[in-house]
C-alpha cells in the first residue's frame, strides 16, 4: 500500500488528501476518542488521536477524599469494563503501605473475581472487534455469557458494572452460598462458547483476511512504546505480571501465558492480538476452576484499624489488568487521605502506538487496528 503512495508521487499525479474527523461520536472508536485521519483515497497517511473528552479529574478527586476507602468507587470508573482489576491495584497499594496480611479466602475470591472480570472484559473486546469487522452474531453470543458473569457479580456485591467490592484489607461482602456452583456452571458453558466463537469468527476466512498482516506491531516497537497486556503479548513478548511479578496467589495455579505466534500472518498483527485475548479467556477459566477447587473457608475481612492512616511513604503497585499493566502510585503524608494517587494507564500507553502502526493502512484497517488495541476511554482520560 505504501507503494501506491510512492507511485502517485512518481507520476506527478497530485491527489488531494482528505482530513476526516473520526469521532468523538463514531461507532468504532470505542468511546469518545477523536482521530484526525488524513486519507489519500482509502489509504491512511496520518492519524492523530485526540483524547480528553472523558476527563474527570480522577487524580485530583482522590486527594480530596476524606479517607482511603472513599477512593475505591472512583477506581471503578477508570476502566469501567474491568472495574475489579482497577480496584485491585489501588487496594493492593494501600495494603502494602499498611503491611497487612490478608486471609487466604480473600485472596482466592479476589483471584476468582479478577479472572471473571478479565473474561467479561475480553468478551467485550472480542465481541466489539467482531462488530467492527461486520460480524454481529458472535458479539451477541458472547454477551449472553457475559450476562452470567454479571449475575454472579450482582449476587455478590449488588452491582453489575461498578462494584466497589475490593476493600482495603478484604472484601465488602463474602460471596453468596451458590457462588461456587454458579461459577462452575459458567465455566462449563463458557468453554463451549469459546469453541463456538472460534468457529464463527476467529478462524473465519474473511475475518482472517481482514486482520492478518494488518497493523503489524513488531516486538521491539511494542517494548519501546512500553505497551503491555495483550497488545504486548500479541507481538510475541512473553510478559505477564501475574507470572513475572507475582502478586496475590497467582503462583499457586497452573496456567500459561499466551503470546502471539504469527500463525496467520506476520507476528504482531491484529489477528495475533485478537487471538491472545481469546486464549487468555481459556486460561482464565482454567485459573478459576483451580481456585474454586481450593477455596478455603474463613473470614473476608482482616483486622485493620478503623481509620486507615498509613505511615509517611510511597508505594507503586502494578497489576495485570485485562488491557495491560495498571500501575497505582500512592503517596502518603501520614494523614487519613492519600496525598497523591497517580494511575499509570495501560490503554493510554497502548493507544500511543496507533499512529505508528496505522500509517499506510487502508481506512477499514484503521478500524481493525483500533479494535485490536482495545481501549477504554475512561482509563485513558481518567
Amino acid at each position, binding site marked *: 500500500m505504501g507503494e501506491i503512495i510512492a507511485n502517485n508521487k512518481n507520476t506527478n499525479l497530485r491527489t488531494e488528501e482528505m482530513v*476526516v474527523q473520526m469521532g468523538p461520536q463514531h461507532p468504532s472508536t470505542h468511546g469518545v476518542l477523536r482521530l484526525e485521519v488524513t486519507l489519500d483515497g482509502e489509504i491512511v497517511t496520518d492519524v492523530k488521536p485526540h483524547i480528553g473528552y472523558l476527563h474527570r479529574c480522577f487524580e485530583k478527586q482522590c486527594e480530596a477524599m476524606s479517607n482511603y476507602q472513599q477512593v475505591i468507587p472512583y477506581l471503578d470508573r477508570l476502566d469501567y469494563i474491568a472495574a475489579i482489576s482497577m480496584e485491585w491495584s489501588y487496594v493492593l497499594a494501600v495494603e502494602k503501605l499498611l503491611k497487612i496480611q490478608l486471609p487466604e479466602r480473600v485472596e482466592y475470591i479476589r483471584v476468582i473475581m479478577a479472572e471473571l472480570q478479565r473474561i467479561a472484559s475480553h468478551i467485550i473486546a472480542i465481541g466489539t472487534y467482531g462488530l467492527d469487522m*461486520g460480524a454481529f452474531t458472535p458479539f*451477541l453470543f458472547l454477551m*449472553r455469557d457475559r450476562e452470567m458473569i454479571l449475575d454472579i457479580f450482582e449476587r455478590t456485591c449488588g452491582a453489575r458494572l461498578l462494584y466497589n467490592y475490593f476493600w482495603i484489607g478484604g472484601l465488602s461482602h463474602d460471596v453468596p452460598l451458590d457462588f461456587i456452583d454458579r461459577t462452575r456452571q459458567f465455566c462449563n458453558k463458557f468453554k463451549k462458547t469459546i469453541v463456538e466463537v472460534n468457529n464463527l469468527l476467529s478462524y473465519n476466512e*474473511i475475518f482472517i*483476511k481482514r486482520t492478518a498482516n494488518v497493523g503489524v506491531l513488531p516486538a521491539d516497537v511494542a517494548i519501546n512504546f512500553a505497551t503491555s497486556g495483550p497488545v504486548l503479548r500479541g507481538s510475541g513478548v512473553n510478559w505477564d505480571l501475574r507470572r513475572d511479578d507475582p502478586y496475590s496467589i497467582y503462583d499457586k495455579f497452573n496456567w500459561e501465558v499466551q503470546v502471539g505466534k504469527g500463525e496467520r500472518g506476520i507476528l504482531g498483527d491484529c489477528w495475533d492480538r485478537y487471538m491472545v485475548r481469546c486464549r487468555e479467556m481459556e486460561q482464565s477459566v482454567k485459573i478459576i476452576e483451580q481456585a474454586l477447587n481450593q477455596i478455603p473457608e474463613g473470614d473476608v475481612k482482616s483486622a485493620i484499624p478503623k481509620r486507615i492512616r498509613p505511615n509517611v511513604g510511597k508505594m507503586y503497585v502494578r497489576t495485570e489488568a485485562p488491557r495491560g499493566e495498571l500501575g497505582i502510585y500512592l503517596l502518603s503524608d501520614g494523614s487519613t487521605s492519600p496525598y497523591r494517587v497517580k494511575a499509570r494507564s495501560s490503554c493510554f500507553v497502548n493507544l500511543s502506538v496507533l499512529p505508528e502502526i496505522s500509517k499506510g493502512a487502508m*481506512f477499514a484497517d484503521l*478500524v481493525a487496528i483500533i479494535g485490536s488495541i482495545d481501549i477504554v476511554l475512561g482509563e485513558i482520560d481518567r
Partner: protein
Amino acid sequence: MDKFLTDILGSEIGSYIIIAILPLVFIVPYALFAVWLERKVSAKMQDRLGPMYTGGWHGWAQTIADIIKLLQKEDIVPTVADKKLHLLAPFIVFVGSYAAFAAIPFSIEYIGSNLNLGLFYIIAVSSLVVVGLLMAGWASNNKWSLLGAMRSVAQIVSYEIPTALSLLAVIMIAGTMNLQEINQMQTGWFWNWFIFQKFPFVFLAFIIYFVASLAEVNRTPFDIPEAESELVAGYHTEYTGMKFAMFFLAEYANMFAVSAIASAVFLGGWNSPFGDFMSGQFWGVFWFVAKGIFFIFIQMWLRWTLPRLRVDQLMYVSWKVLTPWAFVCIFGIGLWLVL
C-alpha cells in the same frame, strides 16, 4: 395480462397504469414483511427474541410502526447540502430498483412488460441506482457520505460485470433474453431448471451470479458502502424520515429484484418443482415469490454469519475470481453447445 385488464376497463391507459402500480402493491407489503423477517431471522440466529410486542403475534406490526414513526420525522436537509440533488437522490435510487420490476415475470400471465430484451433491460435499468447513490453521497456534503458513495459506485460497477457474464452463460443456452420464454423452457420437473443443466457450468454461473448480486445490493459480506463501523451509515448518513425510508425500501426492493432474477433464470421462476402438481396461475405467483423469499432468507443468513470484506479484497473477488470464472462458464457452455 394487459389484454385481460383492457377487456375489463375498456381503456388501454388505465390497464397500463394498473400494471405499473401492481408491483408497488407487491413491494411495500413485501418490504414490510422482509424487514420483519430480517429482524426475526437475526434474532433467531443470535439467541434473542426480536420484536415480540407490537401487534400482538411475534411483533408482526413492528415495521408498520417504524414506517409511521419515519413518516412523522422532521425532514432535515443539511444547510450546506446541494438541495436539489439531495432531494432527488432517494427517488432515483428507488426508480432504479422499481423499474426492474417491469420485466420480472411473476407468473405465466402476469408480467409488467413482456420485453424481448427483458434480462438486458433489468441489468441496464438497475444500474441507475448507482447514479442515485453517487448523488446522495455528493449532495450531502459530508465526507463520510462521499466515501460511502465512492465505494458503492466502485463496487456496483465492478460487480455488474460478473453478474452480466454469468447471466450471459444462461442466455447462450436459452437463446433468448425474454424472461417469460426462459421460464417456459424450464417447465416440468425441477431437473428441467437451468441450474441442473450442463453441469457444472450453469451451477457455477449461478454461484457467481448469487455472490455478485450480494455485492450489487450491498449485503454482507459486501456491505462496504454502508459499513456501519467504518462509515457510520455511508451515503444515507444525512437522510432522515421518509427519504431515508426510500433508501431502505429501494434496498429491499433491490434484494427481491436480484432474487427474482436468480429464481427466474436459474430455478425455473414460476414453474412448480413437481411438474403439473401445484402449477397454474395462482401457484405460479406463489412459487415465484416463494423462491424469491428463499433467496432473501439466504442473504439474511449470510449477513448474520459473515464479517465484512475490505475494499481492495472486494475488488479482488470481483476481478480476479468471479470474472475469470464467469468466462470459464461461458467458454464451457459455448464448447458444450458447439460439440
